[in-house]
């Protein structure tokens, strides 16, 4: 009947679809891909040029000179050092805090669920706006945090405006925003752990602290590694919090890669140097993201296998 009449048509279209359909379906995503790869190629090209927007007559290829100059450029080493310090400190602090909180909330109860929902709030706050919130709270005239510091005996604690405490201030904002992310991932990890090893250990009278070191931590380590790598990738590129808080200042105290590249491009209009800086940052994130993706996929496979 009508079904039979349709059959040959369907078969032909399905043969066609088997070869062409996946390409057709992913074509738009592919086009976006290409649209992004073009500016990326342009950035590589710029990084090999002597290119200042203020001196168009002077533009030309200088091949690796922008990169070679970095070796003797104290500003570059400062940028590298600040970026690594920022990334290292935020990730370590957020891991410790996130793991601690996840352990506190591990048992499912109404209070714990409520708290973990509350902790989503900072993570949902735009980092740039979080920086503005802390800017208001650390204002030297009326900031509540400045007032707390006064109570604690620090008379003139100037937060982001002092070179000594600027890094601490932006790290505080980063910790406030992103600790919940690590907490959520580790909490999900903790709750998915099998219960048998813990029951056996409890029967054997193994102390809780030892259970933590010998069972919880090793079993949780893939989750910890994934969370740490993910945060490290984001944190080494931090721009929003630092730019909104101090634009890299005071002085060059907070000149991380992206802030320095942004200012190079728009303020000193040194396109070549800006592009070379970003290429170095890209190389770092490329290595990190490859390790991350491998870990993440392995974790996902495992979670699938157990489900």
């Amino acid at each position, binding site marked *: 009947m009508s079904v039979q009449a349709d059959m040959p048509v*369907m078969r032909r279209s399905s043969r066609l679809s088997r070869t062409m359909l996946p390409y057709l379906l992913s074509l738009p995503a*592919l086009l976006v891909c290409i649209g992004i790869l073009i500016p990326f190629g342009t950035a590589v090209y710029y990084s090999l040029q002597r290119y200042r927007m203020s001196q168009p007559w002077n533009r030309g290829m200088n091949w690796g000179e922008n990169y070679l100059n970095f070796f003797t450029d104290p500003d570059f080493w400062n940028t590298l050092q600040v970026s690594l310090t920022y990334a290292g400190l935020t990730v370590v602090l957020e891991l410790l805090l996130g793991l601690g909180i996840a352990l506190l909330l591990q048992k499912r109860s109404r209070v714990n669920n409520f708290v973990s929902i509350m902790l989503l709030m900072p993570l949902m706050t735009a980092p740039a706006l979080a920086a503005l919130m802390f800017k*208001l709270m650390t204002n030297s005239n*009326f900031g509540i945090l400045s007032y707390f510091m006064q109570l604690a005996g620090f008379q003139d604690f100037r937060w982001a405006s002092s070179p000594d405490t600027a890094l601490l201030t932006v790290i505080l904002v980063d910790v406030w925003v992103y600790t919940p992310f690590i907490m959520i991932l580790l909490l999900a990890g903790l709750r998915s752990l099998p219960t048998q090893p813990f029951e056996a250990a409890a029967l054997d009278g193994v102390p809780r602290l030892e259970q933590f070191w010998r069972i919880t931590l090793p079993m949780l380590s893939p989750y910890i590694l994934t969370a740490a790598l993910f945060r490290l990738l984001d944190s080494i590129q931090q721009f929003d919090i630092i730019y909104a808080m101090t634009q890299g200042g005071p002085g060059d105290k907070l000149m991380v890669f992206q802030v320095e590249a942004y200012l190079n491009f728009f303020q000193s209009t040194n396109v070549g140097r800006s592009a070379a800086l970003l*290429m170095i940052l890209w190389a770092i994130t490329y290595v990190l993201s490859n390790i991350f993706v491998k870990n993440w996929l392995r*974790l996902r496979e495992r979670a699938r296998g157990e489900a």
Partner: protein
Amino acid sequence: MDHMSPLERILRAIALALVVLFFMFPIFWIVLMSLQTNETILRSPPSMAFVPTFKNYAAIIAGRLDSNVASMSIHFMGNLMNSVILSVGSVALALVLGVPAAYAFARHKFKGSEDIAFTLLSFRFAPPLLVLLPLTLYFQSLGLANTYVGLIWVYQLICLPLILWIVRGYFEDISPDIEHAYRIAGHGWFATFRKIALPLAGPGIAAAGLLAFIFAWNNFVFALVLASADKQPVTVGALAFVTASGIQYGQIAAAIVMSIAPTLLLALWAQKYLVEGLSLGAVKG
């Protein structure tokens, strides 16, 4: 193993209270500030005793900021509108582009599929300025500079990889047998996709869309580089507002509250989906 000593119980409660205090206090305090006049904000020592006023919100909604010195017009509502247009537009486009592609990557292992998927994912991790700075120059010659279309296209940098990778995982979890059965019954692939695959992956698509919306809303750097004042979303607009209004702290706080409220309320409303998406698909259920 659930026996806790009273001491441990108390310590846990204290720790939990400190955690809540640390993470909730900034939001609580900004909301309080937004309900105060500058006089009560500037009091020393700070105090929580004040008569709440909605004047700051009224000034922002009306677009006029009157101080005793002068009055100036502000366009923060325009920024809010831009945020809505950019976020909704980007997520809609990312869903239209990303869901079919995710389905293709999940169902058909075709030549180059893994490479394309990985390239797209790697955009999520590359420094955004690397692409944005050359784009400023291209956008000018293409006439895309400072347009919603241009911005929404760039927002795909964050939205598309997110949709693609989360939704792909959900499609992979659907057994192909169900789809085969439906197709043998005489339905075309599109009907199968629409009637079987899409509904089954629905929760995943919702989670990915929600997360993409929040990331788009919270994005700062794209619009900072590519948009002028009339197209800027709240994240960039708030920073400009701080510079422009100087010491109108109550209004600044109100502007921040209005900017973060949409994502926070969305998160409260759909926290279950969010947690699932945020766990990177590492953990199911």
